[in-house]
């Protein structure tokens, strides 16, 4: 063995020794479980709620709504039950809406913080992080207090209208799709602001000066300099927001009640209430594939975003 080979051999062994616990965890707790979920999704539920392993596509067929076994009222087979397709579509639409709103709401703030004087920048950034570290469930709970019929927001509107003597019937805002959207935007806003801030902060001031010297006005500078250079942050933020929104069930469970059922709720119910693990697994596989497809199309178009590690 040449000395070069010996060095390489030793490198290999060191690297493998250092990485092996990580691989143990990644294979044992991520890859194998995913394979188990895939296997389970082809199974069936027995009357006690246990999984019977089989190779059966019925769970996936049930998700498409083209039910073969369940009766569809008076209509002759084949019939179409849009329940699950509607849930998938609703989740996708909500994830898109949330992402878009979070960009619109977050961009000005990210810009403001990135362009603030250096001595104040850290504090302003810190203030964005604080809500992120107060617990997810607690943050959703806060919105119950605000949105319910006798809640803070209705109280506030009522008080303001009361000053000008306009009668006010409290609005029912909780347990609506709007409440879920507000909750989602609130939960995920910092995930978008942070990568956008990272991109915006990197832009060299001299670029703005150059644009101004060359006669560009504010709007033109923004459209031609700021926006393109901050795109990687927006891309990274989109990935960090879209994927978790697709799978979340807490926000819709607490703020949407039974009105807004998302894929996450569907999966959770199959695993805990209905105890149909096979069907729940199939729904998870579909969720994962759906998310991956959207992410891949998006990443192909815009790149993966260099700011993902903020």
């Amino acid at each position, binding site marked *: 063995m040449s000395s070069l080979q010996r060095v390489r051999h030793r490198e290999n062994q060191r690297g493998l020794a250092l990485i092996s616990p990580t691989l143990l965890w990644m294979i044992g707790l991520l890859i194998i479980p995913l394979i188990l979920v895939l296997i389970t999704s082809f199974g069936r539920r027995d009357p006690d709620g246990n999984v019977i392993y089989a190779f059966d596509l019925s769970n996936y067929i049930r998700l498409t709504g083209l039910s073969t076994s369940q009766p569809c009222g008076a209509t002759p087979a084949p019939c179409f039950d849009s329940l699950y397709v509607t849930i998938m579509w609703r989740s996708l639409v909500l994830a898109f809406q949330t992402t878009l709103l979070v960009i619109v709401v977050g961009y000005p703030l990210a810009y403001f913080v990135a362009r603030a004087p250096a001595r104040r920048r850290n504090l302003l950034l810190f203030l964005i992080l604080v809500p992120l570290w107060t617990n997810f*469930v607690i943050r959703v709970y806060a919105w119950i207090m605000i949105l319910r019929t006798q809640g803070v927001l209705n109280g506030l509107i009522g008080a303001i209208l009361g000053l000008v003597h306009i009668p006010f019937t409290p609005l029912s805002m909780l347990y609506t799709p709007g409440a879920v959207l507000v909750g989602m935007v609130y939960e995920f*806003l910092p995930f978008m602001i942070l990568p956008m801030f990272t991109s915006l902060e990197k832009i060299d001031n001299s670029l703005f000066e150059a644009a101004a010297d060359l006669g560009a006005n504010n709007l033109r500078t923004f459209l031609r300099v700021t926006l393109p250079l901050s795109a990687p942050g927006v891309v990274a933020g989109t990935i960090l927001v879209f994927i978790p929104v697709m799978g979340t069930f807490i926000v819709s469970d607490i703020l949407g009640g039974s009105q807004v059922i998302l894929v996450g709720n569907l999966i959770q119910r199959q695993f805990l209430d209905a105890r149909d693990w096979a069907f729940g697994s199939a729904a998870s596989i579909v969720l994962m594939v759906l998310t991956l497809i959207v992410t891949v199309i998006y990443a192909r178009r815009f790149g993966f975003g260099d700011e993902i590690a903020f």
Partner: protein
Amino acid sequence: MGLRRSPWLTGISALVYLFLYAPIIVLIAFAFNASRTNVVFTQVVNQGPCGPFYWFCVLSRNQDVLNATRNTLTIAVVSTVISTIIGTMAALALQRYAFPAKTFSEVSLYIPIVIPEIVMGIGVLVLFSATFNVLNRALGLVGDHRLTLGLGTVIVSHIAFSIPFVALVVRARLHGFDRSIEEAAMDLGANEWITFWRVTLPSIAPGVLAGSMLAFTLSLDDFVITFFATGPGATTLPIYIFGLLRNAVTPEINALSAVWIITVLLVLLLSQRLQNSETA
């Protein structure tokens, strides 16, 4: 440039900050509500020896909350220590060595980022219940001796999602590391082990610390994976609060939230202080 001084931008930013903080302020304010049903803010509670802090005192006597707090902290501390060690090892391996399966390792570390948490959650649930079923049958375990979901399964799962984040943060720190000081240490007669402990580790320590802080907060905050990996007797605070929300909303939950928020704020300020004193 010009946009920077725009009053519009400042105004919009102030509104977004208000949006971020209004819920938190409401939450804390209602922890001092006199009304037990906690629907409308009637007046500041003033009851018993604790006065306005009545609900905080009620909370401190709630055994379920104390148990959940203990579980949450146990899980966070144990999973942070283990994932910090494993994640740092991974960062060293990926940054410094070429070895077979390197690309595979790198890709596998991205799995928790690109896959919805709920899928990971049900994944570990299916894994543990299948494994425990087989083991319980094979070993003939019955009754209380059966292997079940609990603290152990939650800790193992938390380690899984923390490792990638620790590895990412430590690797960023290693990236700018000047290896010539290691060579200098070796030239001066230190062996590799001593070089690692006396030279390498101290200089990547801020990265390791930052990574462990991230792992700790991720573990404290986690709901979804804990929800599926937990079992009887291993309720964490987020799970406990979620359970309460579906039934009643009392000022006690607000008091619990207030304590949580203020604790997190203090820890954040402290770590910020530490970081600042380090760079200064």
